[in-house]
């Protein structure tokens, strides 16, 4: 979706256009849900939070200034809901991360199961903001600047979170090379 098209849809949604908003949800759901799944480590909670984030975005559309992309803005709302609600507690994320690793075992070309389990555990063990930075930048391909806007953190802090998080994940996979 181009920026112009997105702006047009946002303007239509602001005027109450449900159809325009549904198109925006459809276009950005994968990125927002993917980020929240990695961040919470709990699939069902993540999807529920993602729904809540989109509904909150709908009710606050008039406050969206357009300084960041719509995807970043909704991801930020989702991040704050997940963090504040503390639904993603660490024990559940380790257990469900392992379950998720088993669940996607049949995917063609997928990474080995032991790597996925190790990564799920290591992700759950990362501090909250570091985990969010890693999930955004390494998992979902957001830029460091986008992640900084979403997490409301300085750019340097986000870069440092991503590097440290990456090192810890590599260590969990059995080494520190890269």
């Amino acid at each position, binding site marked *: 979706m181009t920026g112009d098209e997105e702006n047009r849809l946002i303007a239509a949604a602001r005027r109450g256009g*449900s159809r325009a*908003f*549904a198109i925006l*949800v*459809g276009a950005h*759901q*994968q990125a927002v*849900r*993917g980020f929240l*799944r*990695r961040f919470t480590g709990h*699939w069902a909670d993540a*999807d529920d939070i*993602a*729904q*809540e984030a*989109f*509904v909150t975005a*709908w*009710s606050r559309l008039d406050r969206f200034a357009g300084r960041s992309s719509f995807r970043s803005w909704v991801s930020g709302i989702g991040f704050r809901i997940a963090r504040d609600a503390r639904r993603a507690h660490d024990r559940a994320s380790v257990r469900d991360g392992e379950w*998720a*690793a088993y669940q*996607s075992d049949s*995917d063609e*070309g*997928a*990474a080995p199961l032991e*790597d*996925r389990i190790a*990564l*799920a555990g290591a992700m759950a063990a990362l501090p909250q903001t570091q985990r969010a930075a890693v999930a955004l930048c*390494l*998992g979902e391909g957001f830029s460091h600047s986008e992640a900084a806007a979403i997490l409301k953190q300085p750019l340097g802090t986000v870069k440092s979170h991503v590097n440290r998080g*990456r090192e810890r*994940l*590599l260590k969990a*996979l*059995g*080494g*520190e*090379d*890269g």
Partner: protein
Amino acid sequence: MDNETRLMRVLAAATLPARDPAFVLAVMRRTEQQRYRVERVRALLRGAGLAAAAAALAVPSIGWAAAYAEALQAGALAFLALVALVWATRSLAQRASAAWAG
């Protein structure tokens, strides 16, 4: 395979959700519910405002009605007579047109 490649492979494979129309539907259902809730609260507030205004007007009109009781009674009777006359005229007109058609 080095650990960097393994990490990227696991991150790429792990939790990417499929594009899900049911998710979009669930979001839209929740937005509609929220919109309905907001409208209901607005309607309640509007109703409460109107009721308060009506009560504020009714209190002084009690004194006025007591002072002009006779005129009020005559006016009410005249209004009822007018309503009865209109009703009777309409009823007769309907019967006449039905008889004409039959």
